[in-house]
């Protein structure tokens, strides 16, 4: 009985444990790491998209009072180069040539950032500019030249086709072609990147403070690149002010800072300013898809052919290029939630003279959804069918799970059609169509866009790396209080709360008695970190596995000390008791004191102490979350401005650990999706200069740009631990497509359809005038 009545923390709307320090200004972010004698770094960056370096004169800078050292490639001869995958690497500091605007060339190390920047201005670099490679289609044809003389521009090429594709494609009664373009965007974490490094006074080891999503990955990268054994490096991740995939990579600046600390035996810190962020944080979404779709008279889609192209920038981000991630997975999940039997994809990823492409939340997904939903809407419009009906006709049905898609990805069970029907209800679809007709009569253009998404989560390999498992070390202290350490790298997702919720249920202790540790390779068990929506399902799975093992041990103790059978022991409220006899109880504290202090009473066969590391490797290589977003927009056909006015989400991420946190993730992803759909673009001019170098040029959604978002939860459990699926990317996967489809719907009377993101006012006006 007690078991049933006890509140279950999993699924509860618990307020976050991390909030008080963040709300009171006590949280310590990277720039808050300060030790005596700490030096600061400013980088001299390339002003050219492509140039030979003829000379570098650092003498004036070196002699400026307050300057400690100046580093060029000679002082830091390190290449960020994953030789197994790419023919090209990026030198940490430029070596004889530069290949994008913002590439680090020289590092100045000074008493403070003001002096470092003064000195940076005194450095004279003589460049000989060369023709930049800026157009993706040209670059694929090796025009106007190769970006790197010794390597072809196309660095990732892959073709895949469902058997029987050509016959099926040719036999279909209708065909349409379209070309889709997503323009460069970037994550823009509110806390810019930063790194600090110092030699540990006690041990002489190197400590690197990193604003990263993956502590162990960062340790591995620093060790490999600087040739230091792992046990001599400690990574500490302080509070991280947003990551969104962008902080999953190891960057040249991380390496330079670590090298400076080693070389000069001084604490060294670098904090990016916003100009540096926009130029040198990995970019994303620079993709073109040339697509053909074949379908029958009823709108049943039979086959999709797609030439996927991505501009990977000047170098592969280390250790992976985002271009490969965006196209490689898009090609495998391009059919989304639809039962489309035939798919043919050709991928070409090219170098250019732009910032390297890396990961940004959703990676492939926002692009693939934009294409997949854009195609469905084109089919609907071509056949004059309702877009919701065409989706119904194509949707994968419950009885088809586990479903193998045309690219041979296996989908576990989801609620595809159900989520769409729910979202249609939330937005009031039937009523909307009537309203839309009336408003059109008045010269007002409103539209809805439906975006049904699948979200592969908890993948064996993701932006967080190739580590498919996660670990949790639980230590119950002699006081009965619990610390639980993970290799995760949260950046706002609330893992300290959600992991504690899972553990509280297993250990029968109050939430307040649990502290979740993360972000320190000295205390955390080895783990992959946070990325690819893996922390909930895999990290949470590790919490459940370790929690269960510890629970079993506590029960053994309680049975022994209370002289009862193990099956009769219950745990809760920090106590263990005999079922039905609540008086026969003892506290977890008593068990812990026995385990550490009164060791002669430890049950036979159990070790001293209460410490366990549990690991969890999901059986499936991926679990799919799903859902439907519906956006309503109003388009001002005179100004071209798009306003997102209403928004509904039906979301299914399996068993929910904390609905409030899930909703927060959805809201944030929708906001980023609205940015992706109508605001955010990194623009280069014809010389390869990035012209969007402030947040006045690169526009983020503000509080008035995001409408209220109505969220409904559906729970189709995964087959993994706890039934949990990942969920942090789905909202950004679905939202740009929802808004784009809504704009196409609003502008239907003018005939055009959105094919480029973001949709700018100029593009809207052109669609209106092209009628």
């Amino acid at each position: 009985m007690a078991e049933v009545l006890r509140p279950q923390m999993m699924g509860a709307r618990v307020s976050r444990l991390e909030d008080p320090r963040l709300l009171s200004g006590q949280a310590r972010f990277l720039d808050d790491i300060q030790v005596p004698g700490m030096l600061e770094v400013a980088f001299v960056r390339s002003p050219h998209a492509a140039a030979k370096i003829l000379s570098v004169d650092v003498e004036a800078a070196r002699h400026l009072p307050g300057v400690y050292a100046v580093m060029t490639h000679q002082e830091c001869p390190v290449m960020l180069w994953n030789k197994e995958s790419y023919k090209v690497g990026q030198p940490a500091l430029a070596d004889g040539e530069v290949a994008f605007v913002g590439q680090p060339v020289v590092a100045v190390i000074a008493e403070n950032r003001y002096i470092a920047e003064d000195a940076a201005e005194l450095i004279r670099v003589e460049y000989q500019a060369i023709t930049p490679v800026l157009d993706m289609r040209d670059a694929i044809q090796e025009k106007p030249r190769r970006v790197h003389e010794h390597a072809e521009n196309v660095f990732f090429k892959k073709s895949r086709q469902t058997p029987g594709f050509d016959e099926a494609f040719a036999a279909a009664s209708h065909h349409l072609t379209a070309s889709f373009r997503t323009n460069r965007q970037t994550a823009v974490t509110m806390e810019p990147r930063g790194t600090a490094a110092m030699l540990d006074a006690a041990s002489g080891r190197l400590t690197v403070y990193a604003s990263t999503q993956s502590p162990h990955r960062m340790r591995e990268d620093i060790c490999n690149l600087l040739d230091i054994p792992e046990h001599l490096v400690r990574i500490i991740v302080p509070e991280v002010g947003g990551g969104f995939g962008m902080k999953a990579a190891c960057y040249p600046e991380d390496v330079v800072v670590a090298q400076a600390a080693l070389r000069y035996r001084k604490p060294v810190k670098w904090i990016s300013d916003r100009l540096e962020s926009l130029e040198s944080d990995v970019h994303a979404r620079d993709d073109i898809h040339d697509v053909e779709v074949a379908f029958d008279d009823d709108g049943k889609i039979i086959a999709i052919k797609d030439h996927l192209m991505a501009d990977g920038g000047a170098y592969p981000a280390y250790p992976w290029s985002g271009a490969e991630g965006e196209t490689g997975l898009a090609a495998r999940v391009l059919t989304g939630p639809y039962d489309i039997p035939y798919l043919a994809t050709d991928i070409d990823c090219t170098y250019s003279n732009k910032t390297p492409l890396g990961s940004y939340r959703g990676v492939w997904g926002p692009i693939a959804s934009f294409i997949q939903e854009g195609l469905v809407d084109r089919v609907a419009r071509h056949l004059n069918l309702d877009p919701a009906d065409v989706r119904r006709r194509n949707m994968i049905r419950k009885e088809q799970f586990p479903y193998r898609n045309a690219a041979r990805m296996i989908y576990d069970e989801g609620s595809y059609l159900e989520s769409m029907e729910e979202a249609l209800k939330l937005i009031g679809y039937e009523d909307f169509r009537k309203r839309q007709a009336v408003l059109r009569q008045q010269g007002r253009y409103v539209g809805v866009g439906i975006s049904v998404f699948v979200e592969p989560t908890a993948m064996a390999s993701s932006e967080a790396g190739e580590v498919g498992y996660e670990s949790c070390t639980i230590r119950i202290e002699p006081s009965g209080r619990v610390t639980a350490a993970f290799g995760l790298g949260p950046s706002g997702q609330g893992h300290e709360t959600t992991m504690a919720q899972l553990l509280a249920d297993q250990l029968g202790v109050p939430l307040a008695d649990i502290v979740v540790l993360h972000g320190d390779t000295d205390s955390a068990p080895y783990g992959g970190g946070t990325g690819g929506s893996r922390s909930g399902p895999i990290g949470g799975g590790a919490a459940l596995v370790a929690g269960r093992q510890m629970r079993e041990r506590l029960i053994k103790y309680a049975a022994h000390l209370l002289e009862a059978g193990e099956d009769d022991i219950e745990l809760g409220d920090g106590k263990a008791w005999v079922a039905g006899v609540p008086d026969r109880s003892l506290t977890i504290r008593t068990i812990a004191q026995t385990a550490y202090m009164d060791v002669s009473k430890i049950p036979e066969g159990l070790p001293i102490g209460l410490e366990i590391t549990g690991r969890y490797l999901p059986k499936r290589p991926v679990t799919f979350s799903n859902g439907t977003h519906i956006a309503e927009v109003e388009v001002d056909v005179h100004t071209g401005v798009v306003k997102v006015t209403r928004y509904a989400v039906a979301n299914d991420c399996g068993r929910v650990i904390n609905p409030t946190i899930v909703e927060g993730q959805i809201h944030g992803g929708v906001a980023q999706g609205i940015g992706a759909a109508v605001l955010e673009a990194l623009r280069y001019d014809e010389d390869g200069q990035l012209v969007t170098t402030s947040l006045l040029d690169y526009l983020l959604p503000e509080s008035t740009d995001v409408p209220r978002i109505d969220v409904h939860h559906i729970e189709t459990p995964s087959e993994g631990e706890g039934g949990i699926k990942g969920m942090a990317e789905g909202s950004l996967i679905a939202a740009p497509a929802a808004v784009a489809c809504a704009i196409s719907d609003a502008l239907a009377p003018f005939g055009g359809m959105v094919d480029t993101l973001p949709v700018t006012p100029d593009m809207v006006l052109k669609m209106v005038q092209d009628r």
Partner: protein
Amino acid sequence: MADERVEVVLQVNGREHRLEVSPRWTLSDVLRHQLGLIGTHVGCEQGVCGACTVLLDGEPVRSCLMFAVQAQGQHITTVEGITPENGLSPLQEAFRAHHALQCGYCTPGMLLTAQALLDRDPNPSEETIREALTGNLCRCTGYQFIVDAVLAARGQGRGA
């Protein structure tokens, strides 16, 4: 030249500080590095993101766009200054209850902008709240829970 120092007297969170600063040091840098008030965050140094918002005589300003010497004699309030000795203020409690923060980087600036709004208008509408917050960018929350928190904190004052 770069290292010239001048004296400035700043009133921060009700305390007077006499400091030697370089005239070119921004207010945000002095608050953070000289006074250790690390709750003030710097997000863009271009005056756009609002993370560095502090109150100057009760009005929200960007501390990254001001030199510390310009704040001579004025009353500066940082997030530390709106935090009660024990626990959280009604607005901070509302932020927690409504999950109005994720990574927490924009949060101090958001709190100060919202507090200034509530100080001058104890009962703002949702539209007024959204307008007031347009100068503070948040990349995590999509703003809805922040707006909900400010709505919930209406009429409760600053607390202890």
